[in-house]
């Protein structure tokens, strides 16, 4: 092998260059993880181009994994009416996901191998790219349990279409879906490659309903990641649940062993809430700094709550300013989203900025593709969003244009294939 090795694994081209190299790659992969594939999702490896994560494990990958920089999210509808087709597809997706997360091709042969007269089983645009921390997270929408596949009695209770929130202007062509795939990576081409190949594997069984590209993670999921800024220019998600807060994860994010007796397959998984939130960027940019900070409730410079301290200081909602009114506006975004205003619930946010070019009026078609993981949307998302839609000062500059709710099962256990337990 003449190519330089990536920091924690091998480049795709090296890995994919035939049998001997593939065997070497598998060994390097195992060494890179150290703790082994079964627990890799629980103990995230440090990020970076060479980082690689395991698909299998007691919790799904791509939730507490250090948030990567890029996203390709896709929702699918199942076109087949066959339960066997669905089961085979999910198993095949799991196999491909596992390979791609290792930095290998989507199929066993790879992009430049296999029968010369057949198209390769991997599309090839990721040749030479490192695993780039790719995670693939697959979820099931409420409609998957509508009876077409004999799964109606296995639907977790809260897995229903999200209700209409005040002000929602949802586009059906950007909402819902039988299945979803969240592909996150530090290289956009690696994320797109993953979705493209899974869509290809699904042809005939599924069809892409909508998909969304995202960049610039808007949350941190580990304590050593710097809080990023959203397109309003503010730090967002400072109070996010982090990977090392294991008790909080069990309380708010991971589905408990007996939480949904109707859906034992879901234990260890999580609900994924997706909202495409368009921002009226040009209007926001015309707000005074005073108003911007008042609306958010944090300083724009370092993200400190307006009540003082540094970014991670706890906001003091009781602190009074001039005229005895609280220094942090009770309707500011930081106040509305705070656990004390939401029965103590916390969510794990994993959103991305998006810019889909410009609108017909020449405005940025941009915003936040909000993704949150919680173990019960009826307690952890719906009440909060209902209140925010009514009162949050920020809502004036937001428009929810897409929505989805999905149940993400844990990764497969050794010897199993993805979603085996859903059909068991």
């Amino acid at each position, binding site marked *: 092998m003449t190519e330089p090795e990536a920091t924690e694994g091998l480049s795709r081209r090296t890995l994919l260059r035939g049998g001997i190299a593939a065997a070497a790659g598998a060994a390097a992969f195992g060494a890179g993880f150290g703790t082994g594939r079964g627990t890799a999702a629980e103990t995230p490896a440090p990020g970076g181009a060479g980082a690689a994560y395991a698909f299998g494990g007691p919790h799904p990958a791509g939730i507490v994994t250090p948030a990567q920089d890029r996203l390709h999210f896709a929702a699918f509808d199942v076109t087949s009416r066959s339960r066997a087709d669905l089961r085979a597809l999910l198993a095949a997706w799991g196999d491909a996901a596992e390979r791609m997360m290792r930095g290998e091709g989507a199929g066993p042969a790879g992009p430049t191998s296999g029968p010369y007269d057949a198209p390769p089983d991997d599309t090839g645009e990721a040749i030479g790219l490192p695993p780039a921390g790719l995670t693939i997270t697959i979820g099931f929408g409420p409609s998957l349990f509508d009876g077409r596949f004999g799964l109606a009695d296995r639907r977790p209770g809260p897995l229903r279409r999200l*209700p*209409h*929130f*005040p*002000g*929602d*202007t949802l586009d059906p062509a950007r909402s819902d879906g039988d299945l979803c795939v969240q592909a996150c990576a530090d290289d956009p081409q690696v994320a797109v490659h993953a979705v493209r190949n899974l869509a290809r594997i699904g042809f005939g069984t599924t069809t892409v309903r909508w998909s969304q590209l995202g960049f610039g993670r808007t949350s941190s999921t580990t304590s050593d990641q*710097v809080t*990023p*800024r959203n397109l309003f220019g503010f730090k967002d998600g400072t109070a996010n649940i982090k990977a090392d807060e294991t008790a909080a994860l069990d309380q708010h994010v991971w589905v408990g062993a007996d939480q949904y007796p109707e859906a034992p397959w879901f234990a260890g998984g999580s609900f994924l809430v997706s909202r495409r939130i368009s921002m*009226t960027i*040009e*209007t926001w*940019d*015309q*707000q*005074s700094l005073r*108003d911007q900070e008042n609306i958010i409730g944090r*300083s724009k*410079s*370092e993200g*400190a*709550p*307006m*009540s*003082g*301290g*540094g970014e991670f*200081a706890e906001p003091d909602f009781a*602190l*009074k*300013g*001039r005229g005895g009114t609280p*220094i942090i506006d009770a309707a500011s975004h930081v106040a509305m989203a705070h656990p004390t205003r939401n029965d103590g619930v916390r969510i794990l946010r994993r959103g991305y900025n998006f810019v889909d070019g410009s609108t*017909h*009026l*020449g*405005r940025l078609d941009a915003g936040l593709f909000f993704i949150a993981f919680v173990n019960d949307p009826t307690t952890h998302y719906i009440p909060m969003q*209902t209140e925010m*839609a*009514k009162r949050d000062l920020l809502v004036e500059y937001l428009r929810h244009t897409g929505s989805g709710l999905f149940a993400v099962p844990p990764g497969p256990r050794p010897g199993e294939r993805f979603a085996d337990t859903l059909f068991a």
Partner: protein
Amino acid sequence: MKSPHVLAAALGATATVGLLAGCTSNDKAAKGDPRHVSVTSSADACELTATSAPSGHLTFAVKNTGSQVTEFYLLAEDGLRIVGEVENIGPGITRELVTTAGPGTYVTACKPGMKGAGIRAAFQVDDSGEDVAPTGDVATQVKQATKNYQAYVRDQSAQLLTKTVQFADAYKAGDDDRARQLYTDARVHWERIETVAESFGDLDPRMDAREADVEPGQKWTGWHRMEKDLWPQRAKGYTPMTPAQRTTMANDLVANTTTLDKRVRTMSFTVDQIANGSRGLLEEVATGKVTGEEEYWSRTDLYDFQANVDGARVAFDGLRPVVDKRNPALAKTIDSRFVALQKLLDKHRQGDTGFVGYDALTPAQVRELADAVTALSEPLSKLTAAVVG
């Protein structure tokens, strides 16, 4: 995003300044900008990096190193009249006061805990030769502007109430043609003062909610509910309201409008509220009218468009003498962009006071209007800083 290392270095070098904002401020001071003064407000001290500055636009970057909320004032020589102030600075926060000061003696004051006279010191502003308008003159103009705007808002509110009563009568009587005419006539007065009218959180959802704004379990009432009933063409399988339902709906609107009018009568406005209102009305145009979303059923968005522009124009005209003094270039730009926007709107007039329906506009015409709105709202967003500065 600055790395933590950069931050640490900056903090180490200059103990008195804040984090990100503080660095920037200090850079300016370090570069020798004599009009930039850093202020450190602690529990028992108010330290300024300079005790004098040349006349013109001054910036005070106030860092609160105490544990209580603080304020900073620039007062006239008498120690009473406020030239500029910055309030609600939380512990650890840095905030800037940007103000204009002519030559003379002033008093600075930090007020940790927001109590008492504060920690005061003299501050000298030397004559730089730069033309700074005499403040007494502007003060009179400000007073006049606020008085005029208050009268305008009251007048529009009174007309809104009169026309709403007429609308309600026609609607209840089943005189739909007249009700449709009065719908646009009355709403013009709402839209001219929309930023004031919608500021009451209890009334606005009951008076001006669109169908998508309604939350589950809440009854949809107000203007747009009756709009749908009067223009049901775009509604699928629509069931018209019964006379009894119409009466309830119309009476409810009249009651809410009466409450609104009563409240508006007691309101007064500061110059920054007037300036923000002007900008706010253009935002309403940008997000609701030019996109054809406000009057979804009647397609009469251009009436509202014009009314928002009217209201923004009145607010700006009232402040014009102040802006002419403080930032004449900005006044000229805003003025010319109002003219350009009005010219475009006039192309779509129909009859004496009316406008064509939104659907009659081509995509290119919508784009042209949207561009003119953006061209105006950008300089308009600088109005507040110009009138308070």
